């Protein structure tokens, strides 16, 4: 058996006195697409942000590809990683945000080229080729020289996906990538994600798109109140939720 790509064991997270994650246990296998649903405030974004150490966990163990996130273990002691080490870990993990967060002062192409050049120190020519190909893949070959403010929300989010992929990550995190989009723009973004899943990318997707979860997801996780209430095959969970909380949530969103 290969090692899981993500392995969370008893992960807790507090914001001050607010206990947001109350013991999360999860495993994501390489190539798996895990969709996470749950009511607002249940800690979905927080958990996702813990995976690439944008938030520090307060207890438990969180591993990505067999390595602790943000810490090194020496004997039975944990040592905090230096900034450079955390940055090196994050290079392997792509993240796509609800509000895109493209760099507004750079063109679409420059947005995609920025990190490989600045972080990995790759040559401009090689990166340009890869970035162009990525933007073509997400259907934006005619928008490369456009600035984010000149693109629609859907186009911006596809640039953001290309930007994350340009770092050639082994894991992609999506935090409600289509929630800020007009309904008619959602499809193009989901198509891009569907293609990525078909290419075998390991993905954790927080989403309200139940259809996408059913069709593309290998696993569906329902979170509520900082715990995983239910997890399983999306079709099973959606058709026959085992828990009352899952049932009542689904009855509201379906």
């Amino acid at each position, binding site marked *: 058996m290969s090692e899981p790509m993500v392995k969370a064991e008893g992960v807790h997270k507090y914001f001050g006195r607010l206990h947001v994650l109350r013991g999360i246990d999860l495993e994501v296998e390489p190539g798996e697409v895990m969709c996470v649903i749950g009511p607002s405030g249940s800690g979905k974004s927080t958990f996702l942000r813990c995976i690439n150490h944008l938030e520090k966990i307060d207890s438990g163990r969180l591993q990505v590809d067999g390595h602790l996130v943000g810490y090194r273990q020496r004997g039975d002691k944990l040592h905090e990683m230096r900034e450079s080490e955390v940055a090196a870990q994050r290079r392997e993990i792509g993240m796509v945000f609800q509000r895109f*967060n493209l760099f507004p002062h750079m*063109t679409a192409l420059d947005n995609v080229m920025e990190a490989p050049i600045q972080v990995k120190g790759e040559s401009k020519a090689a990166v340009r080729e890869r970035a162009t190909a990525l933007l073509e893949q997400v259907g934006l070959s005619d928008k490369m020289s456009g600035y*984010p403010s000149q693109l*629609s929300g859907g186009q911006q989010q596809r640039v953001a996906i290309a930007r994350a992929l340009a770092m050639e990550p082994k894991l992609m995190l999506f935090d409600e990538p289509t929630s800020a989009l007009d309904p008619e723009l959602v499809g193009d973004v989901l198509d891009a994600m569907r293609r990525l899943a078909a290419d075998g990318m390991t993905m954790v997707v927080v989403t309200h798109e139940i259809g996408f979860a059913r069709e593309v997801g290998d696993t569906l996780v329902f979170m509520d109140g900082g715990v995983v209430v239910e997890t399983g095959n999306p079709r099973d969970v959606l058709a026959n939720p085992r828990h009352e909380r899952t049932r009542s949530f689904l009855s509201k969103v379906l």
Partner: protein
Amino acid sequence: MTETDTAEPVRPETIKAVPVRHPGRWVSGAIVLVLAAMLVHMLFTNPNLDWGTFGKYFSQKEILKGLVATLELTVIAMAIGIVGGVVLALMRLSANPMLSSAAWLYIWFFRGTPVLVQLIFWFNIKALIGDISLGIPFGPTFITWDVNSLVTTFVAAILGLGLNEAAYMSEIVRAGILSVDEGQTEASQALGMRRLKIMRRVVLPQAMRVIIPPTGNETISMLKTTSLASTVAFTELLKAGEDIFNANYKTIPLLIVVSVWYIIITSILSVGQYYLERYYGRGSSRALPPTPLQRLLRGNLTTFHRRPPTPAVPRNPEVGGL
């Protein structure tokens, strides 16, 4: 679809109405015209203004030397101010309490004392520290310099103006940095970028849009504040003029010479600011209007003061409300 939708649109008749009269505008216009005429008359007939002397000294060598010294002082003091301001702003925003309180203390002190006092202080620095020595702190010294040979009047002026400016610039830079959305830093972190690189490549370029306009203001203000250096015997533009009118008593014409030079440089700086703002505004949601030069080349100077009819940058029709 009805036929009128697809047919060539017929423009409805334009309303023809008698415009509202504005008698007040005529009266106020007349008053302004009369006052302007009186001013022009005074400018040309008052013998004390002495335009002959103005012409004689406007491009005289001593004045031009003073002008160059003023420009040097402005550029170097602003350079110190901007670099120092960025460093101080980063210190204040740093998580290290030693750094942030040191920056706070610096800003508190330099904003709390008049710049003229600081200038005079630097001019008299010899009285405070005597000589500067290089060596091990509290241990033996290797080399010693005479402070007066290090801190010339030029250096005193630069230190006084530049260090004071850094305090003000740091607040401007800090406001600029804080104006950049936190999502930008998070996205950069998620891409594996490190703090300094995020600052240099992502945050500061965006902060520039907020930083440039007040910095232009500061530069123009600095140009004129350099005249304070005349009080510590540094020969800049004002001192050059003073030296001349102290000899020939033609005070007013020489003050006008000096003032006209300040106005000319200020005007040039304003144009420079306009183009810098355009550069750092690229990619902003509002379309950039063409520059005056572009308008000139297109030959439609008539729209000089109006917004251009079509945005210079084509916008995507499907831009949604974000």
